[in-house]
């Protein structure tokens, strides 16, 4: 990144994606190619975990990068580039899920911070609801993630697979860091309930 780009990046000068995005803004198409090359795996994987293996995760990932391209003139580095990209991806996934009329297993009331209430009592974290024919862990994990409400699913995916901090997760989901922490905690507890019988069976 040259000096002018670094100046525009502010406190995120060390962020690779921010640097490329500023170069794209300056008209350097090769920077956009580098951006897509570098982040496509993360975007596709995240969308696949949110939408399921058979969902249109690749199409939405392409659409996410197109939206990045369209917004290049108005882009202002206000955080890590991954936060910016994942926010786009998450909203595309939400629109897709709403369009499919997929809803969480239960519609839960929320507190002022958008945190679900009494989730432990209502999420159908019953291992027997996972398809018995699934043998591979990848399939079981996908099925277990699909059982979670979409915000819990997103929170645990961001936390475990993308290594995001609670602050970043909160920014993407437009909630408080405390609400994000609660979502991650509940998601992990539900996943333990769903997956523990299969772990025990494997250990037997």
């Amino acid at each position: 990144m040259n000096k002018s780009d670094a100046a525009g990046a502010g406190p995120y000068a060390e962020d690779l994606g921010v640097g490329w995005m500023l170069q794209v803004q300056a008209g350097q198409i090769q920077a956009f190619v580098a951006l897509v090359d570098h982040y496509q795996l993360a975007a596709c994987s995240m969308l696949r975990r949110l939408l399921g293996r058979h969902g249109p995760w690749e199409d939405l990932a392409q659409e996410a990068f197109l939206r990045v391209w369209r917004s290049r003139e108005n882009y202002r580095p206000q955080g890590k580039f991954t936060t910016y990209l994942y926010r786009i991806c998450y909203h595309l996934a939400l629109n897709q899920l709403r369009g499919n009329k997929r809803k969480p297993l239960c519609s839960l009331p929320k507190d002022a911070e958008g945190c679900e209430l009494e989730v432990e009592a209502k999420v159908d974290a019953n291992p027997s609801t996972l398809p018995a024919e699934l043998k591979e862990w990848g399939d079981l994990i996908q099925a277990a993630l699909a059982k979670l409400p979409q915000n819990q699913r997103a929170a645990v995916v961001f936390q475990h697979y993308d290594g995001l901090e609670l602050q970043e997760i909160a920014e993407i989901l437009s909630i408080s860091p405390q609400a994000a922490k609660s979502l991650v905690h509940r998601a992990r507890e539900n996943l333990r309930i769903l997956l523990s019988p299969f772990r025990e069976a494997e250990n037997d």
Partner: protein
Amino acid sequence: MTDWLDDILDQDPGATPAENFTAKVLDAALAEEHAHSPWPRRFGLATAAALLLSVGFWLGHGVQPLHQEPVLSSGANHAALDLEEIYQNRDVLEVLDVLSDEELEQAFLDAENGTWVLDYALEVPR
């Protein structure tokens, strides 16, 4: 002690984007840029307009304008005007009733030769 859940979650393989993923994104982005560019669009519109005009001119060449008035001789011009008066003159029309439709048809079609209808009508005493 590691959390067994993390070990299990690590076994999800994630996604594998298609090999041409970047190329497809780039093609779509550049296509949008081209579509929004003003000059190619104006050039295309101008070319299409010129083509339409040329085709229209070629198709219309040699065809008489639809609204052009037929050229009549002076006598027939007067006959045409008089025929208008005949239509409005009931007495004359009553006289014309004795004529056959076939004769009337021919008379009114042939403006130049049809003045005999007027002559006949005017000669009949009222």
